[in-house]
């Protein structure tokens, strides 16, 4: 497994964990309320901090396992994989943003708009890392 593939696994796990915990907290705090709680900056800072720390730790571990690969530039196949995965991620993000904007026109709920777009960002990134992993395993 190449360093970049391991990196994709690390980021996928980190983002899945971080995103799940964040939205679990949002939904927990919204229980009993009429809608979702308003997005709060401390919660986002906590999530960002957690994602950064976890990804740094994960990358230190995988770099320690294969230091030469960690320092290497992307080769032509990896660049193609990155481009294809990025393209798919962009499409998903675009779709979710449009969907979120559409839902705002109906619900006029700003918090829902925020969380929908934020979730879309996380989902699109998860899709990017998943696509990279898939292409590394099977790419032609």
């Amino acid at each position, binding site marked *: *497994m*190449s360093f970049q*593939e391991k990196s994709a696994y690390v980021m996928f796990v980190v983002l899945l964990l971080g995103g799940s915990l964040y939205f679990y907290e949002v939904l927990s705090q919204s229980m009993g309320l009429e809608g979702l709680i308003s997005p709060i900056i401390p919660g986002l800072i906590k999530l960002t901090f957690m994602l950064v720390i976890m990804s740094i730790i994960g990358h230190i571990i995988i770099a320690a396992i294969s230091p030469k*690969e960690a320092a*290497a530039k992307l*080769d*032509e*196949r*990896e660049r193609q994989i990155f481009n294809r995965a990025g393209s798919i991620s962009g499409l998903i993000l675009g779709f979710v943003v449009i969907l979120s904007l559409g839902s705002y026109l109906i619900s006029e709920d700003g918090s829902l708009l925020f969380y929908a777009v934020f979730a879309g960002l996380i989902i699109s990134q998860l899709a990017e890392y998943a696509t990279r992993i898939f292409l*590394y395993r*099977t*790419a*032609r």
Partner: protein
Amino acid sequence: MLLEFSYTEQRDSMKKKFPITNKVREYREGKGVMTQSELGALVFVTRQTVAAIEQGRYSPSLETAFRIARVFDTGLEDIFCWDE
């Protein structure tokens, strides 16, 4: 029988065959103890990319294909073949 034929047709259409085959592994193993990593370093790709080339899962760029041919001191068409 009609169902079997439909299944086979569908299965075969899903197995997109790569039109370009190569003998990279044969040449590499024929050159003594050259590893995939060593070949990768010489042509500026990763070991995993060399493995993907040898397994027919990836077609290298023209530049990389020429570099591979130069490593083995042979022509491009001796290593890479168009297989229809």
